[in-house]
């Protein structure tokens, strides 16, 4: 039981570390790292949802090969042993989106550094919030 739950606990721990970095750290770069950690924990969670342990044999990748279509037993074998492909597709999309967001954040941080000459959030505070 324990080793099935542990990866989910890791997700939670990573998520909380990310939230901690975002809310407590005063350095722009550390905040960005916090966002990256949060993204990764969510992606890990999605992958874990799709993973499963078959009772016999080990889990296989959900790949349909051209030979497979001729034999219905192969398809059933695939269905009962493969991991769920949908979360993997979601994770791919989510990684790409995360990349775009993080790239934009880094650009913003660089421009802020040009304006203020620092990454320290306590000195970047013209707005009242």
């Amino acid at each position: 039981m324990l080793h099935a739950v542990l990866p989910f606990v890791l997700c939670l721990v990573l998520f909380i570390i990310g939230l901690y970095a975002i809310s407590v750290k005063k350095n722009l770069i550390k905040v960005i790292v916090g966002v990256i950690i949060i993204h990764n924990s969510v992606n890990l969670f999605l992958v874990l949802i799709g993973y499963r342990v078959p009772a016999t044999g080990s889990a296989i990748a959900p790949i349909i090969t051209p030979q497979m279509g001729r034999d219905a037993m192969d398809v059933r074998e695939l269905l009962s042993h493969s991991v769920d492909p949908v979360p993997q597709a979601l994770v791919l999309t989510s990684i790409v989106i995360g990349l775009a967001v993080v790239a934009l954040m880094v650009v913003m941080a660089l421009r802020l550094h040009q304006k203020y000459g620092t990454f320290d959030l306590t000195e970047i505070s013209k707005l009242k919030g």
Partner: protein
Amino acid sequence: MAFLLPLSVIIPLGAAFLIPLAQLIRSKKGCPAGEVIALAATAALVVISLCGLATRRTVTTWIGGYEAKSELLGLTGTTLPHTSEGEADPARPRGVVIEQAVPGSAAAEAGLQEGDIITGWKLPSDKRFGPVWSMNELRRQNAALEPGSIMILQVERNGSTLEEAIKAGKSVAGIAMVGDGLTRLLLVIIGVVSFTAVLFSLSYMRTYTKLSLYYSPLMLMIAGMNGIVVSGDLFNIYVFLEVAAVSSYALVGFGVESEELEASFKYLVLSAVASAFILLGIGIVYSLRGTLNLAQIAEFTQFAKPNDAMWLALAFFVAGFGLKAAMVPFHAWLPDAHPSAPAPVSAMLSGLLIKASGVYVLARLVFNVMGVSTAVAYVLMTMGMLSMLVGVLLAVGQWDLKRLLAYHSISQMGYVVLALGVGVEVLAKQPASALGVPPVAALAIFAGLFHLLNHAMFKSLLFLCSGSVVHQTGTRNLKELGGLSQRMPLTCFFTRVASLSIAGVPPFNGFFSKLLIVIAVVWAGHWFLGGLTVLVSFLTLLSFIKVQRYVIQGELPAKFSRIKESPAPMLVAMGILAVMCIALGILLPLYGSGLLKPAADSLTQLAGYATSVFGG
């Protein structure tokens, strides 16, 4: 009509890619080709959204083909715990325990009962039973069959082993785009406001450089919002949400001055956290239901009670979409982000984005997909009440014109969420019966959506007016302004119209929607909330009297004695919205039954959403 839904996403998306290309061809100065493309695209969106109103029924477009799959309808169950272990324990029974077999469904017809353990399955032609490891897997095995074919389940009941034949129902593969009443209402709002915003940008954005970099994200944001509204699929909503959000981050920081960059960064971080919450919620829902299609999840909601994990997913959704909608515990980013953007973008953010990516999705999930409950109702009502009150109290003390308007966005969206929350509460306490939907719930939801429509119009108008003032005077500090009615009579007239609308003065549209909200709230028995709603309305009026006093009336400062009225495109854009502000209130009997009633109906039908999607 079905092709209109993908078109409403493809047109702005195409425009977003065409504009940088057009810029390459044309001259370096300005962006005339880009402006024409943007204007044409948004005008096309208005036409498309109005054409969509011609039909009343729910339109579903399947992207990637409408492929009927078989589906185990009416069956929910949990996996016996041994399957989470790496090693199977031969002493323990393995399979899925049935939690519920809905009366009248294929599962009940097959004779399956609560507490049965499904231990194996086979086709009628097979000799041996195959193993069943989890409910999701059983669904997937079943999904590989032809619709209508028979699947034989091996069932353990009271110690004896039985065989039950279950007929596979019909389900779908492919990504759904769903156009129901609510979608059509949001499409009209997005079309009209984005058209006026682009029209306003033609003159206003001339003071900025790199205009192709402005119109392209603007179109992308419209595509994202239209995408959120038309998707019938949880993950697609997430993707379009991010498309709209990423382009809005870029637009908030478009001025690349220090304040704009700071606001944009703050918005980026909080919004990224919100997206993470939403994605976590989506993951949990997928792991429980095995599907991302909203209508299919709604089908489960009709018969399955939410378990703890579903509540957790709902909590993540409320936090995530609450952050996107800037409801009060999560509002910190909005007063910085919205004023920092160029005025037309502020109008789009306040008028559209917080509705499409926040309130709309929240309403859709709570009413149609996850199911109503009193707990959600109280959360929504509390958030709405706090936003209403805190937003207006913070607004009254502001001296920055756009910041004041941004705080009012929080406050006014609080009205909408409060009204929807009252609707949820009434529907959760007395579900729709043969007599129909409880009239209080119908009124509350109608009023909430009416206020959403009105807020889009008058808040966009106010931001455009503030843009017009800033464009001519160069300042948005109330203390430095004054007496503009002498030099900019039209802008001042439009500001008056919008101020009276948002403050709820008859006969402008804000009055009618606020009146309906107060009636609905009091009718539902919440006297205190009704009183609070009226009080907030007075405070709003107070705050806009301040705007009138310091911008329109009073002494014209000497340095503004030579300013002129804004150019024609800006005036036309503001004029359209001002006409809307007056017409939407007075002409409610004319368009209410065609635009707002279907939108409210699509929320009050609750999980009947599934039937309307698959049946239509």
